[in-house]
């Protein structure tokens, strides 16, 4: 667990340096984009039961591998991959809406900035959440499935 936290911290330090320090972080806060990304997580509840989603999150953080939970791990990995796909598609839609707003309002300069913000910040959130949070979680579940399969082969 400590190794995981250290890896996360190191990754975030690199991200902060790449973004040019902590001062500029407030420019990255945009409520409509946050709402767009939230849609991806809300849609997850339309497809899966609450217990399936909670189990997916719980299993991806737990260290123990239970040999009876193979199907649960496969489903959990699928839940998390689906969340990632949903937020990526929502982000692309936000980008397209932003583009339509920009191109439809080329004359009105005051409306340009929020449209550009929407078209760029929503994909940023989506990619950040997908690669920083969801991908490690689904990889952790995939690893458990592979380990279980190998142990079953050995028997």
């Amino acid at each position, binding site marked *: 667990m400590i190794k995981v936290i250290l890896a996360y911290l190191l990754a975030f330090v690199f991200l902060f340096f790449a973004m040019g320090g902590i001062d500029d972080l407030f420019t990255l806060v945009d*409520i*409509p984009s946050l*709402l*767009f990304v*939230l*849609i991806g997580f*809300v*849609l997850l*509840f*339309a*497809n*899966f039961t609450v217990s399936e989603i909670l189990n997916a999150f719980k299993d991806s953080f737990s260290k123990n591998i239970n040999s009876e939970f193979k*199907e649960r791990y*496969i*489903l959990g990995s*699928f839940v998390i991959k*689906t969340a990632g*796909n*949903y937020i990526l*598609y*929502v982000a*692309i*839609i*936000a980008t*397209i*809406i*932003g*583009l*339509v*707003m*920009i*191109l*439809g309002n*080329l004359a009105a300069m005051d*409306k340009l900035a*929020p*449209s550009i913000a*929407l078209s760029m910040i929503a994909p940023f959130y989506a990619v950040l959440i997908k690669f920083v949070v969801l991908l490690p979680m689904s990889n952790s579940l995939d690893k458990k*499935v592979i380990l279980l399969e190998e142990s079953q082969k050995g028997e």
Partner: protein
Amino acid sequence: MNTFSKIIYLFSIAIFIYASSLCGVTFSYLYDVPSLFFIIGGLIFTFVNYNFSDVKNTFKIALSSNLTNIEKNELILSKEIINKMWSYVLFSSITLVLAGIIFSLAESDTSKIGVFLALIFIGVFYALFLKLFLFMPLETSLKRKMILKLGISKF
């Protein structure tokens, strides 16, 4: 699809509309009849390959909440139909974008190019909206059933 899923689905559409309105998007921005016809034309292509009853059955299987009466072949065919529908819609929207770019660049009045370009992205918006709120939930529901019923781990 139980009542909770339906409420969550409608809630996600409500968040989508609210987030769009926060950025100043109104209905008139995203309403374009030719783009709509292009996308519907793409959807109709599905019936070239599949019977109407197959498509109807796909929706029925994806939306049903019980797992007992579903056969393996039906699940696989349904997933295939959803994938084909999405690819037809995607390619019709790409055709629309290319045709739109050609027509907008042939326009001699340069001040109108922005509006033309905005219009061609609306087709892409419709395609992605259908993907997010129709094809992806249906496909995810079918894949979930495949995992739970058939034990398939890779798609």
